[in-house]
């Protein structure tokens, strides 16, 4: 991604740009080779086991400084990154846009350059603009970790989804079918999950209100299924996506009640899936809207396991990016 747009011009301009992202960054799961994905998941599984044996902390990131730069509000992702960084012995600071110079008109790039000048090694960025971390990675010497950019990707969320599924699926993604349900159009969680799942060989089906299914999404290697019941029948897992209330104001939905009737993951719909099927949700949940409370708290739900895995995945990602940074130096 550093050497962007340097390809020779063809009059057709078609053909996807191939780009290589230096290993000190994690910008997305799109294009990440299967071996790299599995490598991160293996390491994350190790960290998960360390986490479960409480009290054991690592020192892998000693001497590394991590800055969480959050230009959009977040609780779980930010706390999760902080815990992961501190667990491995890194110095970790955080700021959010409300208490930063961005309110004074400083550009995103200038803000991050200032942070970098304080000898920060890794910046964890959340921003409302799709592509903002990729844009920063073109300029900064620090490693850039995408903690959610607009409607593009949320790679550590995608990785924790994969880790959670792998723990129950005995490491096998081929032949598994997972349904992603709800607001695909505005979901960075969905995009990262799709890229990771497709790379690992799972079959991904999407279902949701037609106003929230983006144009041409099939090009990502997924299938759009109009009927949610068809999407769920025989599935190995379902991921309910968070529904933002502003979709009503934008004329994309009629009402929350109608959405819940048509698209909520409820007990009846869970029974359409295979008996051992899993229920995932990236959080924060709107109980009773995209997911019924009894399903969220039910025995098929792995929603809290996802959160625990989140810390483990971020340990693995921070360590790998830090290692790439040290090796390059």
């Amino acid at each position, binding site marked *: *991604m550093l050497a*962007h*747009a*340097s390809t*020779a*011009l063809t*009059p*057709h*301009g*078609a*053909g*996807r*740009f191939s*780009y290589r992202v230096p290993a000190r960054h994690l910008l997305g799961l*799109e294009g990440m080779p299967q071996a790299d994905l599995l490598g991160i998941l293996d390491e994350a599984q190790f960290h998960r086991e360390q986490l479960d044996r409480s009290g054991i902390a690592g020192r892998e990131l000693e001497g590394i400084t991590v800055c969480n730069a959050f230009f959009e509000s977040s609780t779980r992702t930010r706390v999760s990154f902080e815990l992961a960084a501190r667990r491995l012995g890194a110095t970790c600071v955080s700021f959010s846009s409300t208490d930063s110079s961005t309110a004074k008109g400083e*550009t*995103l*790039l200038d803000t991050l350059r200032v942070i970098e000048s304080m000898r920060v090694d890794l910046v964890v960025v959340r*921003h409302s*603009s*799709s*592509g*903002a971390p*990729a*844009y920063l990675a073109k300029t900064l010497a620090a490693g850039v970790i995408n903690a959610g*950019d*607009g*409607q*593009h*990707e949320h790679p550590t969320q995608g990785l924790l989804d994969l880790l959670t599924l792998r723990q129950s699926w005995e490491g096998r993604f081929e032949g598994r079918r997972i349904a992603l349900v709800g607001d695909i*159009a505005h979901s*960075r969680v969905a*995009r990262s999950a799709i890229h990771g799942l497709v790379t690992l060989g799972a079959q991904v089906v999407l279902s949701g209100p037609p106003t929230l299914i*983006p*144009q*041409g*999404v*099939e*090009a*990502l290697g997924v299938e759009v299924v109009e009927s949610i019941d068809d999407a769920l029948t025989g599935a190995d897992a379902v991921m309910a996506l968070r529904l933002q209330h502003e979709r009503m104001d934008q004329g994309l939905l009629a009402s929350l009640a109608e959405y819940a009737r048509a698209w909520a993951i409820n007990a009846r719909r869970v029974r359409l899936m295979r008996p051992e099927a899993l229920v995932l949700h990236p959080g924060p949940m709107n109980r009773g809207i995209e997911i019924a409370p009894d399903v969220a708290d039910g025995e098929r739900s792995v929603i809290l396991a996802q959160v625990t895995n989140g810390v483990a995945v971020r340990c693995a990602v921070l360590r790998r990016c830090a290692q790439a940074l040290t090796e390059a130096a």
Partner: protein
Amino acid sequence: MSHTLLIQNARHWRTGERVDVRIAGGVITSVTPAGPRGDMAEHTIAADGALLAPGFVDIHVHLREPGQSAKETVESGTRAAVAGGFTAVATMPNTSPVVDNAAWVEWLHDRTERDGHCRVHPIGAVTIGQKGEQLAEMIAMAKAGAVAFSDDGRPIMSAEMMRRALEYAKPIGRPIVCHEEDLTLRGKGHMNEGPVATRLGIKGIPSAAETIMVHRDCDLAELTGGRVHFAHLSCAGSFDAVRDAKRRGLPVTAETCPHYWMLTEEAIGEYDTNAKMNPPLRSEADRRATIAAIQDGTIDCLATDHAPHTADEKRQPFDMAPFGIVGLETAFALTVTGLVKPGHVSLTRAIELWSEAPRRVFGLPAVELAQGSDADLVLLDPSAEWTVDPTVFHSLGRNTPFTGATVTGRVLATWVAGRLAHTDATFQTRLPVTVGSR
């Protein structure tokens, strides 16, 4: 009495004959078969068989003055124009303030008089402040020299307002240039709607946002008899609408731009803001339809939509960066590279599309290689290869998606009213006298 200039041994762009062209007082005084070399008058330029053609006209340029001189000025924009072979440009009124009255039209003439390297034809706004609410004084602006009217960049969403504007402008005899975009359909879109936008998580602009308005304004041309010129058309549906309107005999004309036949939405790659413009780069099917519309005459002329921005404005996350790319200094090469070399149109037709055609669309005086014509001329090497390097652009804007591209077709020299306004570095050795930058 000005000196007589002799352009010796040029190849006539249309007939292919070797000619000597003499110029005095800003006009061509004679065109004769090339004589023996050695007839070197004081001001003789040895064209050595390079192609001599009428100067190009770009009817869709943003010179950014008044008010946005960090992006471009009349000086820098017209310098870029002559480097691209253009002897005249029409400049859009979406400046700060908006050119919506005769005083600003006159100001542009004065500024051009002082700073301009080529002719500048102001385009006045259709409505005051381009707000789409109240008609601007189009009669006064036309008297002051406005060649057309446009709310470019701020489409007139009210069909009623557009109807009245077309009726009002009709007796003035100047076209209304329409940037066709239904703003409600565009919403907060930043690139073409489709798989690439979905992959990047960028909100899309469907091509229907353009085609709906093209259809509307074809029907309003029919209702009013007013002259509509469609700016920068980008998609198959728009070409179909214009094709149909012409079949119905409606008073409509249309332009498209090099990026729509050179590139598709894929050129955005990983959020390249230099491939962000409005209308956006579309699909491969639209790119092919653009070429077909040029071939069958649905497209009347070419234009660049030269839209310079500062590096800082473009160096932002994709959805925060402004729309627009520069085009003046790459237009001819992209035409040769994308249309002539692949055999879509002949070189002669390509030159027509940049010279005779835009003059016809805007009713500007014709330029011919003939005695008495204005000496607005361009000397071309259609087979020279070069690499696009925006750091050497004369424009203040360096926002091009073609950086590093190898292209074919070079402008060697440009004369505006008989004055040598530009010579290419590769050509300067052939000049008999040192030429000042202006």
